[in-house]
């Protein structure tokens, strides 16, 4: 047994987009234990339900995270709608699904760029973000914002997409699919990329299940868990299968996310063909009274929204269990036994969103 050393990693580190601190206990170059510490960007957003009324809070909920902002807004709205027993128009459900899948694509493309940056492939990083830009343009054209959309509201959505724009989106996605296929080759087949990801940070199916991993992290280890199969929003009417890999290493996690981008393109195309005409919003009156749990699938995994209302316009309690929070124990498990140089890649493969985790 070599001498043990503790290396502090973060909260400021070139590979980390957001601050998290890890104390890495090393034996020579090998990590034997990692002790996390969070709390650098806690903003008290859950407490804010006492100050902002339930309609204003939609905009706060969107700001929990910059990347999955739409899905946070959607999760919050679904919770309030379920408490108030409101059935939103079907067109709104489809529009929400389209924006949710676009969010998933833009999140995964951003993550792939960050991964490429982490193993030093700058060119690939730029290419990923170039493709992501097309999705941001679609967002700006349809919702008005590039990252924060303010388009999801209690009772439906606030902006419609006309059929001409929907066809245009499909056209853009066709072009993007072709370009992305070329880039996929690099992530899947390139020798240097494979050398950094294949066999690194293996998480077994049993460990993923025991530690409560969610999203691509769990699916890459063979756990078949995708909240979209529950059929919320328009997912019940779409045909898709959860994407599963069994290897459980960083390469499998990359592969799951790549395949999910293609799956999202397919889902959006299905939505465009199935979307019905009609209203996009119904008027919601009164205050919520009751409590509800909502589970939806974000790009990073399953998010749980719990809301408790008391009949006034302010909620009693809102609790958000975000996917990164659930994935941190799994991350610590994968870090055990890896080399110090692989730590940045492993932290990135859970797609950490510390803003979500701390709220």
């Amino acid at each position, binding site marked *: 047994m070599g001498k043990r050393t503790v290396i502090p990693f973060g909260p400021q580190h070139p590979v980390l987009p957001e601050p998290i601190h890890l104390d890495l206990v090393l034996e020579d170059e090998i990590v034997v234990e990692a002790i996390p510490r969070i709390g650098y960007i806690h903003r008290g957003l859950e407490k804010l339900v006492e100050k902002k009324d339930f*309609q*204003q809070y939609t905009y706060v909920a969107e700001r929990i995270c910059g990347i999955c902002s739409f899905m946070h807004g959607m999760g919050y709205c679904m919770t309030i709608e379920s408490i108030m027993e409101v059935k939103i128009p079907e067109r709104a459900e489809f529009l929400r699904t389209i924006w949710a899948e676009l969010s998933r694509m833009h999140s995964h493309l951003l993550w792939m760029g960050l991964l490429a940056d982490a193993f030093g492939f700058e*060119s690939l990083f730029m290419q990923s973000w170039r493709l992501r830009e097309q999705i941001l343009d679609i967002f*700006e054209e349809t919702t008005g914002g590039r990252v*924060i959309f*303010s388009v999801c509201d209690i009772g439906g959505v606030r902006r419609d997409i006309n059929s001409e724009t929907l066809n245009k989106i499909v056209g853009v996605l066709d072009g993007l699919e072709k370009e992305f296929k*070329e880039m996929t080759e*690099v992530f899947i*087949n390139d020798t240097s990329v494979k050398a950094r990801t294949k066999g690194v940070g293996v998480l077994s199916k049993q460990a993923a299940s025991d530690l409560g991993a969610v999203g691509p992290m769990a699916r890459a280890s063979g756990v078949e868990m995708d909240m979209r199969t529950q059929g919320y929003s328009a997912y019940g009417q779409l045909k898709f299968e959860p994407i599963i890999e069994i290897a459980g290493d960083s390469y499998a996690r990359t592969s799951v996310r790549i395949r999910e981008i293609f799956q999202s393109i397919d889902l959006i195309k299905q939505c465009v063909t199935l979307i019905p005409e009609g209203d996009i919003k119904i008027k919601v009156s009164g205050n919520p009274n009751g409590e509800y749990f909502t589970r939806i699938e974000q790009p990073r995994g399953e998010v749980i929204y719990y809301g408790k209302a008391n009949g006034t316009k302010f909620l009693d309690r809102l609790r958000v269990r975000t996917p990164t929070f659930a994935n941190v124990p799994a991350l610590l498990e994968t870090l055990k036994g890896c080399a110090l140089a692989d730590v940045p890649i492993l932290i990135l493969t859970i797609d950490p969103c510390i803003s979500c985790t701390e709220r």
Partner: protein
Amino acid sequence: MSILSMTKTLFKNLIHGPYTVLYPIKKKDSYENTRGKIGITIADCIFCGICERRCPTGAIKVEKLRSTWSIDRLQCIQCNYCTEVCPKKCLKMDNQYTSPSFDKVRDEYTSARVSNNTTNN
């Protein structure tokens, strides 16, 4: 050759030229729906204060007695909520961003009906 998988993309990039907009020379067009700054037709405003109550950030202040409507541009999050709830539809969202500023200044508009008003007529 898996080691050369990026080559095709790289050669394409050499021929293609920049994908980005050459900013100071050419500016990116905003879309019709792009969220920008809130404007007001002050002559139509009845100073009911609904926008002030609904604003999630408290950026808008309405003073009925002085007949003024003001907005802190740096607090506004461009959510468009005020324009949707306005009963007179006198608020409108522009598709241009607020220009950067050094200070937090409130943009204040006074009703045209105020007798000594010299500005927003």
